[in-house]
C-alpha cells in the first residue's frame, strides 16, 4: 500500500523552499539588480559554497543532525592556507599542499568532535555548536600566540606588529581564483569556473558512491534506528565518528575552494559564519535534521545566496536604508533555521502520534 501522495504533506515538507521562492519573486524586481548580474553572482557563490554545504550531508545520513562541527574543518583548511602562504607557494600546488596539510588536522579534529558527540547522544546539534565555539578558542590560541613564536613563520607581513600571531586579514598572493580560472568557459558574458564545478561534482559522486558502500549503509542504519543497528552488530560509535571525520574533511576542502574564490581570509571570523550560513542554506533547500539530499544543497545555496545578495538592495529601495537590508538578511538566515527546526520538530511529534493511533486502530 503505497503512501498516498498528499499535496498537503508535500507542501508542508517543502514549505521553507517555497517561502523562499515567493520571497525571491518579490524581492528580485524590488532590488533593481539585473538578471545578468544576479546569475553571475549566483554562479560564483555556487562555486564558492556548495562544497561546504555538501559536507553536512553525511552526518545527517548518520542521524547526527546538522553538524555545526564542520567549522572545525573550515579551521583546518585555513591553517593549511596560512602555512602555504607563509611558504610562498602559489598556483594549483598551493591548493593541493594546503589540502594535504589540512587533511591530518581535519581527521584529528573530526575524531575529537565525533568522540564528544557520542557522549551527548540526543543533543548532537547543540553540542556540535558549542564544540565549534570551543575549538574557535583553541584556534585563536594557536594562530594568535603559537604561530610566529613556537611555530616558525618566515614571512613577516603575515605577523602582527608585536612579532607573533597571524594578522586578522590576509590576502592570498598567487592563489586568488587559481582553481576558478584554470579552465573557465564564457557563455553569453558569464565565465563559469569549469574545474571548480568539476571538483564539486566529484565530491557529489563520492557521496552517492559512498552511500552505496558497506559503511554508508551502516551509517544509514545507525541514523534510522540505533538500537536495531547495534543489535545487528554494527559498531555504532565508530560509524558515527567516521561520519563526522568525513564531514570535517569535506568542509576543510570546501573552505580551501571557498577562500581561493574569495582571495582573502579574515583569519578569525570567516570560519565562524561558514557554520551558520551553510546550515541555513541546507535548510532553505528543504533539508531537515533527519534527511538531506544533494538537491537540497544546490537549491539551498542558490536560494539562500539569492536572498543574501538581493535583500540589502531591496531594503534600500523599499525603505531607503541599506543597513536595514543588511540586518534583514541576518534575520532571515537565523529565522530560517529557527522556523525549519520548529516545523520539523512539530511534524515529527505529529507523525509519531498519528503512527500510534494507526497502529492501535489497525488491530481492530
Amino acid at each position: 500500500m503505497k503512501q498516498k501522495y498528499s499535496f498537503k504533506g508535500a507542501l508542508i515538507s517543502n514549505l521553507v523552499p517555497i517561502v523562499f521562492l515567493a520571497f525571491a519573486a518579490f524581492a528580485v524586481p524590488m532590488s533593481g539588480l539585473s538578471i545578468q548580474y544576479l546569475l553571475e553572482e549566483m554562479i560564483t557563490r555556487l562555486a564558492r559554497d556548495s562544497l561546504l554545504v555538501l559536507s553536512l550531508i553525511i552526518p545527517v545520513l548518520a542521524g547526527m543532525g546538522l553538524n555545526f562541527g564542520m567549522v572545525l574543518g573550515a579551521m583546518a583548511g585555513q591553517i593549511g592556507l596560512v602555512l602555504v602562504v607563509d611558504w610562498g607557494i602559489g598556483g594549483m600546488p598551493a591548493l593541493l599542499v594546503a589540502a594535504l596539510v589540512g587533511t591530518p588536522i581535519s581527521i584529528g579534529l573530526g575524531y575529537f568532535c565525533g568522540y564528544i558527540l557520542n557522549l551527548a547522544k540526543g543533543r548532537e546539534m547543540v553540542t556540535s555548536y558549542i564544540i565549534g565555539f570551543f575549538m574557535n578558542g583553541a584556534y585563536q590560541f594557536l594562530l594568535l600566540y603559537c604561530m610566529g613564536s613556537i611555530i616558525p613563520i618566515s614571512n613577516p607581513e603575515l605577523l602582527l606588529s608585536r612579532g607573533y600571531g597571524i594578522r586578522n586579514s590576509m590576502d592570498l598572493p598567487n592563489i586568488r581564483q587559481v582553481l576558478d580560472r584554470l579552465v573557465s568557459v564564457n557563455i553569453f558574458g558569464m565565465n563559469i569556473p569549469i574545474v571548480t564545478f568539476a571538483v564539486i561534482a566529484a565530491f557529489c559522486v563520492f557521496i552517492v558512491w559512498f552511500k552505496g558502500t558497506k559503511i554508508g549503509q551502516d551509517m544509514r542504519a545507525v541514523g534510522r534506528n540505533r538500537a536495531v543497528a547495534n543489535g545487528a552488530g554494527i559498531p555504532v560509535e565508530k560509524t558515527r565518528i567516521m561520519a563526522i571525520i568525513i564531514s570535517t574533511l569535506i568542509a576543510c576542502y570546501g573552505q580551501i575552494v571557498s577562500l581561493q574564490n574569495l582571495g582573502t581570509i579574515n583569519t578569525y571570523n570567516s570560519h565562524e559564519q561558514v557554520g551558520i550560513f551553510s546550515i541555513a542554506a541546507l535548510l532553505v533547500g528543504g533539508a531537515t535534521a533527519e534527511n538531506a539530499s544533494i538537491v537540497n544543497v544546490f537549491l539551498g545555496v542558490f536560494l539562500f545566496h539569492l536572498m543574501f545578495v538581493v535583500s540589502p538592495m531591496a531594503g534600500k529601495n523599499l525603505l531607503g536604508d541599506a543597513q536595514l537590508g543588511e540586518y534583514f538578511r541576518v534575520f532571515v538566515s537565523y529565522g530560517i533555521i529557527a522556523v525549519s527546526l520548529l516545523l520539523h520538530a512539530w511534524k515529527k511529534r505529529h507523525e509519531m502520534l498519528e503512527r500510534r493511533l494507526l497502529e492501535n486502530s489497525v488491530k481492530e
Partner: protein
Amino acid sequence: MNVKLRRNLLRVALCLIAVAGGFLLSLVGMYHSIILDNSEFSSAGAVLPPLEGLRVLSEAEPVEMSPDDRILVSTKGPSTTLVFEITSPETQQSREISYTLHMGFKKQFFLSVPAIVGGGKNPFLVE
C-alpha cells in the same frame, strides 16, 4: 604476509608518497624573488664595471637595466634561466649570456649582473 600487514604497509607507503608529493608540489609551486644589481662588482682583485645597454629576458617581458640600476624578478618553480643581452653602444652588436639559477626552497636571491656576465664563479652578493 597476511592481508592486514599488507594493507598497513600499503597505507604507510601512501602516506610517504603524499608527504613526498607535498614537498615536490611546494618545490614546483614556490615563488622566488631575485634582485639583480648592475653596479660595480669587485671580487678577488678584479673590479668589474657596470654594463651599458643591458636587457634582461626572463619569463616576464624584457627589462632594460641602466648602470647602478637594481630590479626585482619574480619566478616560480625550482629553477629558472635568465638571459642577459648586452648591446655595446658603439658596435650595435649584441651578445647574449644565459645563466641558470637553481632556487630550490630558498626564497630570496641577490645577484650582481656584471659578475654573472664576467663569468665569475660566485655572483651572489648576499649569501
